[in-house]
């Protein structure tokens, strides 16, 4: 087996050195009737070529985003990732290194995390950011728990504009922890009365902007109302490229900001692994979940970086930790950071403008079709259209007949909400003018 360097004679020598006859003697503590004396019912070892053939056959059964005019979003976005990103994250020293517990020989990872934290804080308009979370949705769940710890209250108010998967993650975690969640109905019309749901028992209000329907939400009045009631505003962003074009949540009064960072550096990958961005006000830093990297000096006075404030974490605090989280999304955070470094402020701003422009073009064209209505007054690169037909059926049909991935039907996220005629359409820089024209023509023909 190509991954196993020991030869039969090595094994024999090693057993002799240990002083046992067989390797099974080392399993002496396993109850004898439980030690398997046969191979399990699984295939035998295979060479590279054969594995490639099997995996490629499975991969070939999927329709790839690049092979189709592509307009899916709803929390995962197709952007062009520079070749440099994937090359650099495959450097052995980044790819095959562990969590930087020995800082003298992991300054590479640690400096990247320090740069990442600064990029995230600046991008969200916040004072501090952690070294990343599993993804945006789990970050949102952790943000709610953090708000509970800070306010010593246990009820979260969740906007109907929050991505339904995120709302379900929050509800699951809170339900298990016996906390309360007040989740508003899907905010299709953009007219939900969030402020009325805030009361003296509210720990936080969770609001997404742009929301799951694509609408850009004015966070300032919500922050003010939350603060007046002694609650926090948790702002969620599922498309970080939007922050190149719109005011960051930090400038609008958010106390905790959670983003899905997949859009930068990370492929769609059928939903994972992604990277959660998590930022907060510095006064709350000791209640933050996850890893933090901080600056210090070494014994010669040179600047260096270490993991810090670990007294919040499970390996020190055990059942009193702020979170059970042990890992972050290191390599995905690296990809995010490299992509953002390549873009820089000039590139990110331009990328955001291109996304917005392309989305405006498609929204205008679809809005001109008879029977089709664009519901959004505002949006960044994704918006909701109301169709005269069932959206899921339309998406299936266009995928099958035209090879077009037309978007995400709202019913995929909210199957029982009676919103079967709504379609989320995301338009990024990856779409060509031909792709966009093909989408409009195909929908026009199908309705």
């Amino acid at each position: 087996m190509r991954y196993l360097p020991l030869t039969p004679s090595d094994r024999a020598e090693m057993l002799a050195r240990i002083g046992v006859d067989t390797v099974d003697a080392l399993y002496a503590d396993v109850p004898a009737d439980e030690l398997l004396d046969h191979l399990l019912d699984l295939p035998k070892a295979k060479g590279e070529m054969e594995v490639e053939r099997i995996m490629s056959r499975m991969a070939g059964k999927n329709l790839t985003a690049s092979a189709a005019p592509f307009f899916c979003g709803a929390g995962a976005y197709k952007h062009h990732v520079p070749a440099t990103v994937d090359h650099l994250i495959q450097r052995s020293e980044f790819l095959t290194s562990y969590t930087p517990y020995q800082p003298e020989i992991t300054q590479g990872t640690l400096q990247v995390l320090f740069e990442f934290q600064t990029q995230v804080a600046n991008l969200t308009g916040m004072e501090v950011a952690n070294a990343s979370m599993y993804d945006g949705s789990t970050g949102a769940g952790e943000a709610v728990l953090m708000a509970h710890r800070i306010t010593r209250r246990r009820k979260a108010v969740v906007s109907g504009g929050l991505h339904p998967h995120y709302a379900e993650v929050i509800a699951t975690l809170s339900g298990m922890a016996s906390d309360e969640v007040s989740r508003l109905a899907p905010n299709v019309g953009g007219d939900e009365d969030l402020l009325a749901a805030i009361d003296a028992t509210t720990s936080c209000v969770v609001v997404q902007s742009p929301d799951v329907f694509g609408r850009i939400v004015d966070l300032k009045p919500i922050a003010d109302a939350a603060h007046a009631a002694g609650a926090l505003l948790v702002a969620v962003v599922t498309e970080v490229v939007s922050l190149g074009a719109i005011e960051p949540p930090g400038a609008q009064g958010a106390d905790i900001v959670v983003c899905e960072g997949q859009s930068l550096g990370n492929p769609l990958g059928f939903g994972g692994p992604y990277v959660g961005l998590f930022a907060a006000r510095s006064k709350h830093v000791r209640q933050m979940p996850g890893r933090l990297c901080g600056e210090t000096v070494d014994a010669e006075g040179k600047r260096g970086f270490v993991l810090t404030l670990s007294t919040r974490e499970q390996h020190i605090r055990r059942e009193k930790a702020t979170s059970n989280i042990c890992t972050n999304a290191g390599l995905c955070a690296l990809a995010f950071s490299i992509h953002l470094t390549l873009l820089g402020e000039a590139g990110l701003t331009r990328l955001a403008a291109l996304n917005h422009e392309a989305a405006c073009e498609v929204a205008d064209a679809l809005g001109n079709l008879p029977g089709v209505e664009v519901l959004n007054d505002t949006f960044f690169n994704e918006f909701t259209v109301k169709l005269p037909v069932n959206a899921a059926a339309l998406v299936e049909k266009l995928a099958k007949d035209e090879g077009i991935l037309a978007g995400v039907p709202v019913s995929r996220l909210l199957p029982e909400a009676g919103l079967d005629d709504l379609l989320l359409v995301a338009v990024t820089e990856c779409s060509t003018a031909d792709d966009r024209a093909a989408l409009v023509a195909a929908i026009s023909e199908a309705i």
Partner: protein
Amino acid sequence: MLNDKGRPTRPETADETPMAASTFTGNRALDVEEALIFEIGRADVTGVDLPAPKGGASRLGAHARTTPIALPGLAEPEAVRHYVRLSRKNYSIDAGLYPLGSCTMKHNPRLNEKMARLPGFADVHPLQPVGTVAGALDVVAEVGRWLCELTGMTACAMSPKAGAHGELAGMMAIKAALAARGLDKPVVLVPESAHGTNPATAALIGFEVRAVPARPDGTVAAADVKAAIDDRVGALMLTNPNTCGLFEPEIAEIAAAIHAAGGYFYADGANFNAIVGKVRPADFGVDAMHINLHKTFSTPHGGGGPGAGPVVLSERLAAFAPLPFVRIEGGRPVLVEDVSQTRAGETPYGRLTAFHGQMGMFTRALSYMLSHGADGLRQASEDAVLSANYVRAALADLMTVAFPDHPSMHEVLFDDRFLEGTGVTTLDFAKAMIDEGYHPMTMYFPLVVHGAMLIEPTESESKASLDLFVATLRGLVLAAQAGDTARFTQAPRFAPRRRLDETRAARAPKLKWEPPKAAE
């Protein structure tokens, strides 16, 4: 004879006084000091060429950004150099033995990386019509099938994003099962030797944690578990093989005790690499166990994630698996992502993450499983156990094995008794290993022994590599005992940084770069 007249071809300075090992730049040959992107980047530089926007229509409403972001940019060559230089300050499995106990730093095959990057896996949206992702569902189902077969369990919840997330998933299933049975059993037993995530996970979802003592031989006694069980105990969390690197000899009796009390047995699967194909967790009574794909199944650790932590569930817990999951119908995988799609007997307790889990890790793990096969996986576990015991045998006369009464599994635990009176601590010893070119072992964990050193060589090392490692450690032990203390207390001397001041970092946390204040 150009070399006679040209540059010298041999060292000629032997009689000169050596210069101090300092440079004008602070660089040391291949190890180059690298500034932060915020110090070398510029806001108007970009390494990505994009067409100019046409300008005009805006639907951003009143929310267009008006403030600068303060994000530096680098041109592509600058960016490549920045990250390549930083990378060279990291230790990695690819560069050397990485004996971090409980972390399973095994070889990460590059075939896995290649497979994960096939466009059919990497370039697929999680919410595309399910008819366009049949191959992706095949991968999810296939990894689940392998994990169930290897563990003997009934079902596998694939969505957890890491080991600790998998623990959460499993403990939530237990909580849901207790609730469905109308039982109020809020206490979870956790041995003192457990990893910190175990008590943290249990507490996070409202369980009370009750500690079970470790025996002097490093194992958990069934009698102690029985003594700790009362009506309020709903579950036991136990790592097996345990964090001391030992297989729990009374595991069957322990499992029977928790089951007899109406509770469930959660096993931490962190150490599964010792027993794949050798013994199945279902056979020793496990009800739920997470599997760290980034340990046992070779997906890269990536400097701290992403991981993946699918949870296998026994028949008693299978019905409670969280959304989404894949059901096999007529031999084909069907995606169930909402309660409305469930059938009788499927009572998911909720959702743990957006979308479907760590697909990129599933493709890597499946490549690893297919490459090894049932025979190779079993051999890998045997080699991992053999290597740990070989290291132990070769060091037992000089270092102190914490629990000599049991054979080790895939990792061997030493305590610091062998350093008594030397003035050298476990930390010093670890830092001296850095100077010798090794990543240190896990230090000060588990907490049940003094100055713990937990060595896990994995199956990826050749015998020559193990022999060199052993010789290095033997040399260090002899140096410590001979009073060569500075070698340890001054270490590391040759790493990109000397010891870092962690107290200073925590006292006044500096967690992001701030522009230097302008001179008054």
